């Protein structure tokens, strides 16, 4: 283990205490904190909407909220969780904080663009909050035409503007990361010495810069069509609603990989550290990351199997969707092989990471069901789909996000969190998550459609199980707010490398000084040199 630098410099947190010093900062670490505060607020807004949905679904009759309110609730839940929490979650917080540290850089390539991206995010957020106050929107997060352009009487244009604006914040973040990774690496930090977290965020950034602009223009077309009543998506005007679906999913399917690839990066860091073993198949992990990002652009049509697109297109999209399973399985097998004969410590981050692997596997396997056209016809728009993508996005991305927050908490804040509470929360979330979403697989398979506020009485038992699970999940999500908040003020001070981890971010003080390193750190010739046999003499 190399020598830990006790920098003796003030940490980035001590570089100014005023609000002004925060909102005018160009420090990637402070911007990460700004993002963390903002997305946490949106996480709980989206979560509150989900809580209302699950409360309504306790009884078969629509007796808590009206059908219209219910439509608005699931729309808010989707819009907020997808664009204001999941997309920025890991990249904009942990990515912003860690990428320069992990590659031994003092800053990102474009610090001013970085803070601009946060302001753009906030502006988009204001649009969405205003939409909520003004009465909401009821199209679902997918904004499908012609409902969104011709029939909905809610604030579609406002909501669409919010999503349009926030897209530019992820474009700028992606642009910054790509250039940072290409240009800012420390001497000796070659591509195949980079941590997998950096690889994952690099691949994510490519998706962000290539897919998001398509969504932006699509939303412009949609808003203009709604306002001017002229449009390319309206069959009555000579357009085609399928064109909207193609454009929308051209972004929104790769967006799934924007949400899950960084999560895979986090999990790779945690598992190798707490198994005390070098990551198995490092290069294959890198190629798998790029493979998932590449395939991700070619499978959007599997959202449209019942839309009336050509059957041949459906077959090709189905085959390509199956192929995404290959790089994904490589990653799962490699994590498992990393654990094999490792000396495993079940710390809180590790519990989240192991939870991720299990839940991602279930979510991924059920994705194969949905990639099969014949089965998908039966399962389209049922709770099976809901369960599938929540296993990936909540069981996958949110678990990994929380795992990463715990793992790097000492580095970010300079304080240790309470390990026992961390483990308890991780287990509560794992249990609550499964109780919430596993019954939804069964409900969907039995034929319960999504997006209805009523259902036949025979589905009630499973729905009550699901809602009970949601209440456990809510407790699990609120707990970290309490003990992490407590640790900010009362937690013991963190040493520079509390986990005895590899990686350059651990070679500076906790929290790091403004310029990250006093001297540019030396890079290990082998990434993740945990196991003795590969550790250089």
């Amino acid at each position: 283990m190399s020598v830990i630098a006790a920098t003796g410099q003030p940490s980035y947190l001590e570089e100014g205490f005023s609000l002004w010093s925060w909102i005018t900062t160009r420090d990637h670490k402070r911007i990460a904190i700004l993002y963390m505060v903002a997305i946490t607020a949106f996480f709980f807004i989206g979560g509150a909407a989900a809580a209302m949905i699950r409360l309504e679904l306790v009884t078969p009759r629509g007796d808590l909220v009206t059908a219209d309110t219910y439509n608005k609730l699931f729309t808010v839940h989707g819009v907020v969780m997808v664009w204001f929490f999941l997309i920025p979650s890991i990249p904009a917080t942990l990515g912003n904080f860690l990428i320069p540290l992990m590659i031994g850089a003092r800053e990102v390539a474009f610090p001013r663009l970085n803070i601009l991206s946060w302001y753009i995010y906030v502006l988009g957020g204001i649009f969405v909050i205003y939409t909520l106050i003004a009465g909401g929107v009821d199209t679902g997060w997918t904004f499908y035409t012609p409902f969104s352009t011709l029939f909905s009487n809610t604030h579609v244009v406002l909501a669409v503007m919010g999503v349009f604006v926030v897209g530019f914040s992820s474009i700028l973040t992606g642009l910054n990361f790509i250039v940072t990774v290409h240009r800012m690496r420390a001497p000796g930090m070659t591509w195949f010495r980079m941590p997998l977290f950096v690889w994952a965020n690099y691949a994510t950034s490519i998706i962000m810069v290539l897919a998001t602009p398509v969504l932006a223009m699509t939303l412009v077309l949609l808003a203009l069509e709604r306002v001017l009543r002229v449009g390319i998506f309206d069959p009555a005007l000579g357009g085609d609603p399928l064109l909207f679906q193609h454009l929308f999913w051209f972004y929104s399917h790769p967006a799934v990989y924007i949400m899950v690839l960084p999560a895979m990066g986090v999990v790779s860091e945690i598992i190798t550290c707490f198994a005390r073993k070098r990551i198995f198949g490092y290069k294959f992990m890198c190629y798998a990351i790029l493979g998932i990002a590449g395939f991700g652009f070619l499978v959007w049509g599997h959202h449209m199997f019942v839309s009336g697109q050509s059957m041949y297109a459906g077959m090709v999209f189905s085959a390509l969707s199956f192929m995404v399973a290959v790089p994904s399985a490589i990653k799962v097998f490699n994590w498992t092989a990393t654990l094999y004969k490792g000396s495993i410590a079940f710390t809180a981050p590790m519990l989240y990471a192991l939870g991720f692997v299990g839940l991602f596997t279930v979510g991924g396997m059920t994705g194969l069901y949905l990639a099969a056209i014949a089965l998908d016809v039966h399962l389209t728009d049922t709770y099976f789909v809901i369960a599938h993508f929540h296993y990936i996005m909540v069981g996958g991305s949110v678990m990994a996000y929380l795992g990463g927050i715990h793992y790097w908490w000492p580095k970010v804040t300079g304080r240790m969190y309470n390990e026992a509470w961390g483990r308890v929360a991780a287990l509560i979330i794992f249990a609550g998550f499964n109780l919430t979403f596993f019954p939804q697989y069964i409900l969907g398979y039995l034929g319960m459609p999504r997006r209805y506020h009523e259902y036949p009485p025979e589905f009630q038992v499973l729905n009550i199980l699901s809602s009970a699970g949601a209440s456990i999940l809510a407790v699990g999500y609120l707990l970290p707010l309490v003990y992490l908040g407590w640790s900010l003020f009362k937690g013991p001070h963190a040493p520079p490398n509390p986990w005895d981890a590899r990686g350059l971010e651990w070679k500076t003080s906790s929290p790091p000084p403004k310029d990250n390193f006093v001297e540019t750190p030396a890079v290990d010739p082998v990434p993740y040199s945990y196991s003795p046999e590969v550790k250089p003499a």
Partner: protein
Amino acid sequence: MSAAAREMGPGEWREQTSSLGMWVFLATEVMFFGAVFLAYLYLRTQYPDAVSEASRHTHEWMGTMNTAILLTSSFSMALAVRFSQIAKRQTVQRLLWVTAALGAAFLALKLTEYTMEWHEGLVPGLHFTIARNARVTQLFFFLYFLATGVHAVHLAIGVATVLWMSWRLRKPPFPDWRADEIDVLGLYWHFVDAIWIFLYPLFYLVSLQA
């Protein structure tokens, strides 16, 4: 500083960093316009004859003139980039003026064209009076105004930035990194030009097809 910076010195490192940033940004721009091109592709394959007929309502000669103007502006921008590399500050400054003036001329002509199209009732949703092939013509002009409008916004940003750069060059010195900035600005300018090179045949020349 990165490893690359140590090897090549801060100037070259900075130039390559900002130029990579601009290339990535231009990639996002290609995808941004890509959605409109896809919509156009749909319209054109769905209604080939009606689209070509709708295109007759455009002012071909104005589009052609604008194409010539914009290509010339790219030429003067390319010269500005070249002269900045050999640090001819005053020449660069004048060439940037010429570039901005040509860009402004394009915008003026485009605005005139928009005004004429308004009076001819070609503006979808707001003032549209064409009866023949109304549906497709309206969709055609919807995409026309969207694509050329977004292009014009890009060009206006380009003109403003070139003017600002030219103003900053009014006095010496002319440090090395200034040439790098002009190089990156040139990338943007040529990209905006290239977009027009695609828009011009798609909207103006498609009527020439028999």
